[in-house]
């Protein structure tokens, strides 16, 4: 993984010291809140309902065991002993004190972690596939290009005050696990007709109040032009973005108002001016960054499928976990293991400091000391020897991190909602807890199959509700919380926005409604057909009828 050079380390340490002076001046009354707010936000420090919240970047979802231990230390020392992994592969601490925030930032910096650009109208944490570098279906490791973009966009003076925040995601696999179509820029690696690897560039995707699926602005981009082309997109946006209206300030609004062809024309014009300039990335620079992501020293092993199969036949619990949370690795003899943060009744994405330390220890012992964070709020150990799987499973189980529900109905995405967030209109976490408790039979979940439920506590959509197979949006209706369901959303390579099912439901009725949707799916599905495919085939009407009754269905 990327390691700070001397410049990075010095710079981040200086920024931490600068933040300390800013906090000191604020506490001494030398800065008003209006003066201080943008300074703290530049360091990822928000004021939420109960306390300050510190959002810390995990670039492209990759962190070392040392960094995970630092997360644990910060949780224990400056928070209430836990942290929350988010849909942007970041971690958030909910109970930070302003007076202690500079210490937290300094401690994070000592492990090459920053909260810079985790807030504000700049290029945010660049996200990627949690299996990057290890996935069997991958063309190339997307993190190399994420890191290139990170270095380029980090404190870039031209793009530090964009009209609004800007999110970029990169996938190196045709099976999109990074939700690139719902980002301001989505980059999909693929081969052109000559067999060269490059990027399909999508622009103008996003969720929130006005959701859009990104559109292809360029079918294939040579990697050497990644920075110049992204810069052209950013520059056009920076000039045209609606700074007069926060709700219309994202790039998706511009792209969709003027149309993709016109936007492409403007970007191409800019690109022509700069594409062979100093930002054209030389092969040596890509090679330099690539070296940081060199594969770990894998042993020469053979797949032990038959041996594992035999073991799975005699131990159904192990079989459930293998089926649920283990996927194929590109290197023979290894496997990718998802560490579920979705035990029924738990808060999706939350993990205690003690468990963070324990996961760091497991990463050291079983996975070359590296951990990934998925945008679906789980952790991943990417490089586990197949022969170690059973022992790792036992240890994860003891930590309550082995719920075998990856991609199943209880693997719920959930924002902090009104329990913590100052923007929320309704709670999200209790809904996730109700649903996961109601669907805790693993055999039933595995029978139901792939099913994503995404929950947001307001229309800002941090919980990605528009792209959940079932989306749940919390709304405030005359002082009471109601939950609107959408069906048919997806954030994979066939991304789609969900359709609204009907009027909002009170909290108590949500698990029952989910049950009816599942029953309707099972009734209409063909053998082996996923919920999303059944939904696309039969449409919303049967589901409407089952949840609201035949009369309101039409």
């Amino acid at each position, binding site marked *: 993984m990327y390691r700070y050079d001397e410049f990075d380390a010095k710079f981040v340490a200086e920024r931490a010291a600068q933040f300390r002076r800013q906090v000191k001046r604020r506490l*001494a*009354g030398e800065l008003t809140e209006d003066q201080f707010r943008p300074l703290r936000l530049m360091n990822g420090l928000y004021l939420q309902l*109960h*306390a300050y919240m510190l959002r810390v970047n995990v670039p492209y979802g990759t962190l070392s065991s040392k960094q995970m231990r630092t997360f644990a230390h910060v949780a224990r020392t400056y928070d209430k002993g836990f942290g929350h992994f988010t849909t942007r592969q970041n971690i958030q601490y909910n109970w930070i*004190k302003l007076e202690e925030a500079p210490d937290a930032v300094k401690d994070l910096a000592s492990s090459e972690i920053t909260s810079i650009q985790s807030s504000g109208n700049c290029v945010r944490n660049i996200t990627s596939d949690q299996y990057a570098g290890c996935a069997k279906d991958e063309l190339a490791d997307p993190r190399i290009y994420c890191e290139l973009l990170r270095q380029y966009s980090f404190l870039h003076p031209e793009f530090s005050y964009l009209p609004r925040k800007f999110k970029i995601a990169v996938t190196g696999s045709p099976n999109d696990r990074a939700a690139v179509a719902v980002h301001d820029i989505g980059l999909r690696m693929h081969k052109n007709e000559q067999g060269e690897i490059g990027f399909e560039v999508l622009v103008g995707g996003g969720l929130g109040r006005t959701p859009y699926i990104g559109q292809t602005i360029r079918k294939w981009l040579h990697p050497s032009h990644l920075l110049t082309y992204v810069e052209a997109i950013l520059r056009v946006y920076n000039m045209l973005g609606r700074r007069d209206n926060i709700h219309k300030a994202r790039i998706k609004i511009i792209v969709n108002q003027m149309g993709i062809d016109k936007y492409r024309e403007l970007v191409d014009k800019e690109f022509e001016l700069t594409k062979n300039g100093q930002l054209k990335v030389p092969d040596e620079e890509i090679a330099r960054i690539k070296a940081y992501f060199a594969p770990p020293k894998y042993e020469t092993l053979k797949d032990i499928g038959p041996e594992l199969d035999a073991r799975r036949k005699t131990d159904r619990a192990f079989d459930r976990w293998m089926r649920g949370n283990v996927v194929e690795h590109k290197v023979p003899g290894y496997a990718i293991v998802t560490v579920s943060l979705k*035990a029924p009744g738990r808060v999706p994405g939350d993990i205690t400091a003690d468990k963070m330390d324990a996961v760091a220890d497991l990463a050291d012992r079983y996975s070359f000391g590296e951990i990934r964070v998925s945008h679906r709020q789980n952790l991943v150990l990417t490089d586990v020897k197949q022969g170690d799987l059973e022992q790792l499973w036992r240890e994860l*189980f003891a930590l309550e991190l082995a719920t075998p529900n990856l991609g199943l109905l209880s693997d719920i995405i959930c924002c902090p909602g009104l329990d913590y967030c100052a923007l929320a209109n309704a709670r999200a*976490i209790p809904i996730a807890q109700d649903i996961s408790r109601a669907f805790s039979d*693993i055999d039933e979940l595995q029978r139901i199959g792939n099913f994503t439920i995404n929950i947001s506590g307001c229309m800002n959509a941090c919980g990605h509700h528009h792209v959940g197979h079932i989306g749940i949006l919390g709304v405030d209706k005359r002082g009471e919380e109601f939950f609107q369901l959408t069906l048919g959303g997806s954030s994979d390579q066939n991304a789609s926005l969900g359709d609204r099912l009907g009027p909002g439901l009170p909290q108590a009725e949500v698990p029952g409604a989910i049950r009816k949707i599942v029953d309707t799916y099972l009734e209409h599905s063909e053998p082996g057909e996923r919920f999303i495919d059944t939904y696309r085939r039969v449409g919303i009407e049967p589901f409407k009828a089952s949840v609201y009754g035949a009369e309101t269905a039409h």
Partner: protein
Amino acid sequence: MPQMIIANRLVDGRVVFLAPEERWDTAIDHGSVVDDDAEAQQLLEVAKQAVARCLVIDPILIQVKVENGKVRPTEIREVIRAFGPTVRTDMEDVAVPIVGIAPEGDRRAEGAARVNRNAKE
């Protein structure tokens, strides 16, 4: 409708209520509750001075109900601010045990099976 002032304390962001003698208290029941708008505006003036003195940020008036000496905001957002998240904050063990996922010999497996049997009964 009774009203009071809620704010966040600057130094740590904790939720506080304006109490008598210009104090700020984390307990809602210690806060000053007033009945008419003129008094409420007076409280807001006191709160604005506290902002200028860097004690609190974002003070606002909220509507509350008082029953048996207990104060409770009328809006859920302010209820959650006053009393904390409605989900546990300290990660005590609330997860539902699941049947059939425990390694053999793990004592939690027996616990899960027992819980599930009871649930069925």
